[in-house]
């Protein structure tokens, strides 16, 4: 269980970064760290001790135990989505930098939620 708790701590570190940092790039990095922890969580859930990687080398002897392939599939999909998120947020960040001349989120605060 220690592993899962550590993984959740990594997630919370990312949340803490998003909530307290003021630099746009730092916010993106914190989001990335959150992504990493979620991926790790999914893979940890699917691990079976003593299992092999889910790629069959010898199709004849099919009695080997294999770790769960489904969480790995989910992580593959989620990873591509993460790349999409990162590139979009970074494109916005460069646009904002050119408009305001800074990455500081305090100075880019014209709108009040």
């Amino acid at each position, binding site marked *: 269980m220690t592993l899962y708790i550590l993984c959740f701590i990594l997630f919370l570190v990312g949340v803490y970064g998003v909530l307290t940092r003021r630099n746009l790039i730092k916010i993106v990095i914190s989001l990335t760290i959150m992504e990493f922890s979620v991926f790790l969580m999914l893979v940890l859930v699917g691990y079976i001790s003593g299992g*092999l*990687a889910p*790629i069959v080398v010898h199709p004849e002897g099919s009695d080997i135990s294999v770790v769960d392939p489904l969480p790995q599939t989910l992580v593959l999909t989620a990873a591509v989505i993460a790349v999409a998120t990162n590139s979009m947020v970074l494109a916005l960040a460069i646009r904002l930098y050119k408009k305001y001349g800074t990455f500081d989120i305090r100075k880019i605060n014209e709108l009040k939620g």
Partner: protein
Amino acid sequence: MVEFLLYIQVAICIFPLYCIIRGPSLADRMVALDILGILVTGICIKLIIITDQLFMMDIVYAWIILSFISVLTLAKYLENKKLND
């Protein structure tokens, strides 16, 4: 035996982390990242021997190539050039 060596290989990854946190200048940190990339290749090679799953060699290739790309991008920053120069 090889498994023990694998543990050692994972354990020495702590040195690059120390370098990344302490590193007085940017270049030191980049060197640490470069070395970490090569060390992970070693882990991959040891896993080939342990598990007998030979397809891992592809990952070694991709790993070498991609860490080359990222280190080159970082090095270009050091040369004080724009990315598109």
